[in-house]
């Protein structure tokens, strides 16, 4: 069996399983009742993507600051980043969101749940982004720096032509994996009543009572976002490998 056929068969197996699951519970499976809520669902999907992009950029910036602090000469900052990283790694995302929104937010007179929720997601991703920077930057060997010095590149030239092009190539695939994590994590903003994809479908489900269709649609729509993303990541990983 060649690779292509194997994949087709594997995908068909999953589809067959889903058909079985659906058929066991309903005999008039139809998305018809969702039609009038198309805009609502698309808005939810758009909000998921928008919020994920904002979180991605936020965590890229914060991650870089975390990285700089983690290599700072001031030991206090190194320790602070270590402690924060441990805490974030040890906390479930949903707990982190709730704590940010209902415990930390009010202390600063902030009751904006969506804002605090997105900040929580951003902070949650920051240590992961920090690691992405760390591995990308440390992958440029000391000897490369020596060669740059020897040839007499200026600082600007080193960054412009040698360091940044390499860092971007190394950083891209893990950054996109993190983006995928953010998209999945953003579903939890539902608990803060943010109108993202999960929330939108839940609302539509409660209006149409088409629960089975709703769950199938919800699952499918997330995969429509994340699977192409992971496929693109794989292509980039292969093409840009150094």
């Amino acid at each position, binding site marked *: 069996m060649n690779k292509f056929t194997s994949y087709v068969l594997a995908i068909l197996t999953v589809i067959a399983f889903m058909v079985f699951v659906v058929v066991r519970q309903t005999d008039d499976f139809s998305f018809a009742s969702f039609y009038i809520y198309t805009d609502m669902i698309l808005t939810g999907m758009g909000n998921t993507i928008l919020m994920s992009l904002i979180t991605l950029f936020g965590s890229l910036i914060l991650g870089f600051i975390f990285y700089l602090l983690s290599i700072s000469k001031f030991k206090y900052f190194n320790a602070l980043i270590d402690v924060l990283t441990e805490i974030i790694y040890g906390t479930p995302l949903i707990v982190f969101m709730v704590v940010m929104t209902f415990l930390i937010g009010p202390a600063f007179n902030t009751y904006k749940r969506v804002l605090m929720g997105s900040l929580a997601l951003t902070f949650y991703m920051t240590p992961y982004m920090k690691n992405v920077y760390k591995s990308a930057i440390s992958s440029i*060997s000391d*000897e*490369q720096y*020596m*060669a740059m*010095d*020897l*040839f*007499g*590149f200026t600082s600007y*030239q080193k960054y412009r*032509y*040698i360091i940044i*092009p*390499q860092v971007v*190539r190394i950083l891209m695939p893990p950054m996109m994996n993190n983006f995928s994590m953010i998209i999945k994590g953003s579903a939890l903003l539902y608990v803060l009543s943010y109108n993202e994809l999960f929330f939108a479908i839940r609302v539509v489900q409660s209006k149409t009572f088409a629960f089975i269709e709703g769950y199938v649609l919800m699952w499918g729509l997330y995969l429509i976002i994340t699977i192409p993303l992971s496929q693109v990541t794989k292509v980039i990983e292969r093409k840009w*490998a*150094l």
Partner: protein
Amino acid sequence: MKIDIRHVSHTSDVEVLDDVNITFDKHTSIAIIGVSGSGKSTLIRMMAGLEKPTSGDIEVDGIDVQDPLYRKHVGFVFQNHNLFPHLTLKKNITLVLEKTRHLSSKIASDTADKYLNLLHLSDQKDKLPRNVSGGQAQRASIARALSINPEIIFLDEPTSSLDPILTDEVLNAVEELRELGKQFVFVTHVMSFVQDFADYVIFMDQGKIVEQGKPSILQKPKTEELKSFMDKVR
């Protein structure tokens, strides 16, 4: 070229140099040999101005090797090819020529072609370093070192990461460069290459020069250290 190494000492975690004092005059191909950790890599890096000794100084034709002007005329080939991995073999050369030697892209491209051709890499020039063999990458790195038209070329164990076949491939290419009339200084473990290519050999042990002279000293070692070293590498 005249190379003066005056009372150079160095302490580091890896290798130590202990009052190395030697002058090379008229020799065009100097081999530095010795066991790992004997100080030979440190010495060659210092001669190229890449590292600064703790004490002592090194001059080439009267210019201190720490002078940035000197570095512009130095070619250095590292143990691992050390090409910039995101650039093709040719781009590795043209980037250096265009940005640091301020050549036009036409001249940079012609120069790169010339040296890649010299190292038999014309058909590989548009590949990334990861897509060529270790020997080809190392030859490209030699082409890059030559392209800036250096007066002196340092090779720091250029074949240490290669298998015997690729080692021959690279060293044969270096031997062909003899006619360029450049000054070569190199560290290697390949004694046949030292015999063929060097006109002067220094043998280092524990940060000191223990023996020096024409390559024929390798046949008749005077010291126990060189004798046991030769027994090991044979």
